[in-house]
């Protein structure tokens, strides 16, 4: 108490500096932990998938049973064991990081300020305008890049509040232990194999997002945007 009283100037400076960065410390730290754990989840997920690269609908499925999709890759067993180990370890890291991010986002108004679109932007015309602007694939002007446009906001909201929860829940729905405690979870996905299939497609949607995200970052200036996500960056100088 006494110590902070001696340094009011510093405290104000600190708050000012936080306000002025492009990305808050919580966003930066959770972004990179999520990036690393997502990469681990993706690689280990592929290792698990290639042991049986077929997708089914309902409760059951296997060689000899009718499948929904046969992925055009060979069956490759032998990696799913440690693939699962890495998958679950990185799932823990990713989910706990996600919890911190969501609570911090609510608490610091990150969602309200940076992700929820303005009501006026939520018209079809406005979203369409933003699609057309993005489709020109040119480097955004500096003032444009300080804030997310409505398309970016909706995409981030979709990733944070729809795709990530869905991929977590469909993953949990596959667990026989979870199914014994909350059978409704597995049922809501239409069975264990349906949950596996949905898990695959939602994960694929997240990978698609990753590619578009990386392309947009490259378009806006890969080095400077990456640097800003590490150091925080300045929004006005």
């Amino acid at each position, binding site marked *: 108490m006494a110590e902070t009283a001696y340094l009011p100037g510093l405290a104000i400076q600190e708050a000012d500096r936080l306000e002025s960065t492009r990305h808050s410390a919580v966003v930066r730290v959770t972004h990179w932990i999520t990036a690393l754990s997502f990469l681990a989840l993706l690689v280990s997920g592929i290792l698990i998938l290639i*042991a049986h690269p077929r997708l089914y609908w309902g409760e059951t499925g296997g060689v000899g049973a009718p499948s929904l999709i046969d992925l055009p890759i060979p069956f490759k067993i032998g990696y799913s064991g440690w693939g699962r180990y890495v998958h679950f370890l990185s799932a823990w890291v990713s989910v706990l990081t996600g919890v911190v991010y969501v609570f911090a986002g609510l608490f610091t108004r990150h969602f309200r300020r940076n992700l929820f679109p303005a009501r006026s932007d939520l018209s079809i015309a406005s979203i369409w305008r933003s699609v057309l602007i993005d489709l020109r694939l040119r480097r955004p002007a500096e003032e444009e890049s300080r804030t997310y446009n409505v398309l970016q906001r909706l995409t981030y909201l979709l990733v944070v509040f729809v795709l990530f929860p869905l991929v977590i829940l469909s993953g949990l729905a596959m667990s026989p232990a979870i199914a014994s405690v909350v059978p409704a979870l597995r049922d809501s996905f239409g069975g264990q194999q349906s949950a596996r299939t949905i898990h695959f497609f939602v994960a694929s949607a997240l990978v698609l997002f990753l590619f578009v995200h990386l392309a947009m970052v490259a378009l806006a200036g890969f080095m400077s945007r990456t640097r800003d996500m590490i150091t925080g960056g300045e929004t006005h100088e």
Partner: protein
Amino acid sequence: MSEIITRRKLIAAGFTAAGAAGLGVAAWLADRYGLIPPDHGHIFGSGETATYAALRLLTSRHSLAREFNRSDISKVAPVKGEPPENETYHRLLAGGFADWRLKINGLVARPSAYSLAELKRFPSETHIFHQACEEGWSFIAEWAGFPLSYLLNLVGVMPQARYAVFFGFDTHGDDGDLRYVKGKWNSIDMSDAWHPQTILAYGMNGHDLPTGHGAPLRLRVPRQLGGKSTKYLSHIFVTDTVSNIGKGYGAEGVERGFSWYAGI
């Protein structure tokens, strides 16, 4: 200045000590309540321990795997792996398993051995369970057998027991040094061992257990993936520790990269 640093150091030391003590207490509590899997020391043990502890806290002995209807039984029940290669197995198979015995010993009051005919006289049950493989495929089948808990009660399990270990036919076969055990073996904690749906099955879909599915007797642990349901059983060993069996991870599969706990 030096005073501030001293105080800071003191506070830091206090936090460190409290943290270490907290971790110590947490580890002791986790062990006390059976939340630490035997493969916690494996290279991927941290994720495994978190998953096992979380699912153990979430599942109780009362949470039940779904029992399906006859109409849900899969037309195809894929078989994973080959029957044991050893001569004894094939001799017993040729003789209809008349000379086969299930041995149960370890921390039990009455170590015993049962013939298939004796086991079939135990009060029998049928269960229609979903079973998924680590690889991704799954099927539903009806299993006939008896609860493992019935057998455990019969032989009298001692209170210090923590694991039931299952040896298949291709493992050591007898009481050799368990550190050098070879072949397929697995273990479950007593929470799963006493679970009412954990059964020893000698029948499948209205017939004797087919060779590929583990004849003459296999374990079924419906709240875990199929790999946990050891096939071709010859010996059950009740113990307070699995650290002296094989590499001490609680299952042979851990050495090949599979997590011991398969409720995932």
